[in-house]
């Protein structure tokens, strides 16, 4: 079992979701997040004072998958989120120790699917 954490551009979320659905990955959590990376920031101004905004709005996806779905899910995220520009985002993959479905108490591979 793996946990995929992906940071993507907010406006690419719909494309990523569509690609994931086509890859038959339909379970995910989505949260808003702020982050900075290679994209750097941009300048805003308010009442005559300029300031650097370098924490940019991003969307964070968390997807727990069994091993056989891992590559499909990663491919789908890349297909949906990639523009080739700096700022497209990053994908992290972590080993997942366990997964428990609260309603049934099921563990592991069964609980994820």
């Amino acid at each position: 079992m793996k946990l995929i954490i992906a940071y993507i551009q907010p406006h690419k979320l719909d494309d990523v979701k569509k690609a994931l659905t086509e890859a038959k990955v339909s379970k995910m959590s989505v949260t808003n997040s702020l982050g900075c990376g290679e994209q750097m920031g941009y300048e805003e101004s308010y009442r005559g004072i300029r300031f650097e905004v370098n924490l940019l709005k991003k969307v964070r996806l968390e997807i727990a998958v069994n091993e056989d779905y891992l590559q499909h899910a990663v491919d789908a995220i890349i297909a949906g989120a990639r523009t080739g520009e700096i700022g497209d985002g990053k994908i992290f993959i972590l080993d997942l120790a366990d997964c428990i479905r609260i309603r049934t108490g099921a563990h592991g591979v069964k609980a994820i699917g």
Partner: protein
Amino acid sequence: MKKLRKNRRISHVVWLCMGVLLVGAAAAVADEPAPVGEIEAAVEGLQMNMNILWTCIAAFLVFFMQAGFAMVESGFTRAKNAVNIIMKNLMDFSVGSLAFFLVGFGLMFGATNGLFGTTLFGLSGVEPGEDWNWTFLIFQTVFAATAATIVSGAMAERTKFVGYLVYSFFITLLIYPIFGSWAWGSLLDGDGWLEGLGFLDFAGSTVVHSVGGWLALAGAIILGPRLGKYGPDGKPKAILGHNMPLASLGVFILWFGWFGFNPGSTTYADGWIGYIAVTTNLAAAGGAVAATATSWILLKKPDGSMALNGALAGLVSITAPCDGVTPLSAILIGLVGGALVVVSVIFIDRVLKVDDPCGAVSVHGVCGAWGTLSAGLFNMDTGLFYGGGLGQLGVQAVGVLAAFAWAFGLGLVLFWTISKTVGLRVSPEEEMKGLDIGEHGMEAYSGFQIFSNM
């Protein structure tokens, strides 16, 4: 503001004709023409009721400006202080209405002892009912409360609520009415030294706006800047307002209310209402355009918050001269006001280092002074540009300086006294957490995620 224009006969003729028709119909039944005296009395009665109706409608429009101030100020400040802003706006109107009824109105419009009025407290001696004084009281009450609420924006996000209540009480009890009696006392039973000099302030660029603006300056100085407003090097930092659409709704409400503020100050139903609405609107439009252009040039972008301030700057500027200038002069007065407000906001922020989150000192104090002086330049009868010489401008300058000395001086004393007694500023912990939780124990946007670390 002027006394009823008794010499404006043109409209009287129109009403006379209507009166003749009405009374004529009755006379036809009686088969006997009504005496001229009766017709004139009917016309006069009708005109009086029209005046009352118009003045009341104008008063209700000016009342609505309180909502405008509440929206502008909450929009220009952070979400964590929004409940505090609306509480200050609600309470300065409420406390102010009581204080002005009981004491302020009498000081402003009662028979004068040479310095302020001494009769009409609580409108004692005035019969409940039709008397004009009741209409005049409600109209003047909403003006007094406008002066009071201006200060709230400059002192936003760090002022202790109880300290603000004490301030609200004293401005409508003493500070505003006594200055008002000098300029406007003779509108009723009083008589003031400034109006004796020939001071022109039709609807209150100085009496209402500058007085509020200079008190706001005193308050912001005694309070000191919000935490994080100035870096260790003294450079100002941006503290972003949390809702620009709300601020713009507030400005539209204020613009709307100003059609009561200026045209209403005729307190007389005739064509001047329309004329003053035109000069008022032109100056507001000019102010918004000039502020947009000025911020575009100076700050590289047409700053929305500056444009909103610009519309208000135009309105404040035209408030004193609106009845005595040509439409083209009104545009010019508004344009200068709009440019001035941008420069003034930057100057106060960067050079004086006084933290005024909403630009209240610039909009109301500075542009109020400009508007008052502009009457000395552009007034069609006495202005410098119309061959009136420097006399009127000099009198206007005396009024501007008197307002500054009175309001800023007493403001420093009042706010310093409050800071040494009930307290004027919240603790740094409370300021960081937000005044909504600290002062009022509630949140403005419960259920919303506020993504801000300021």
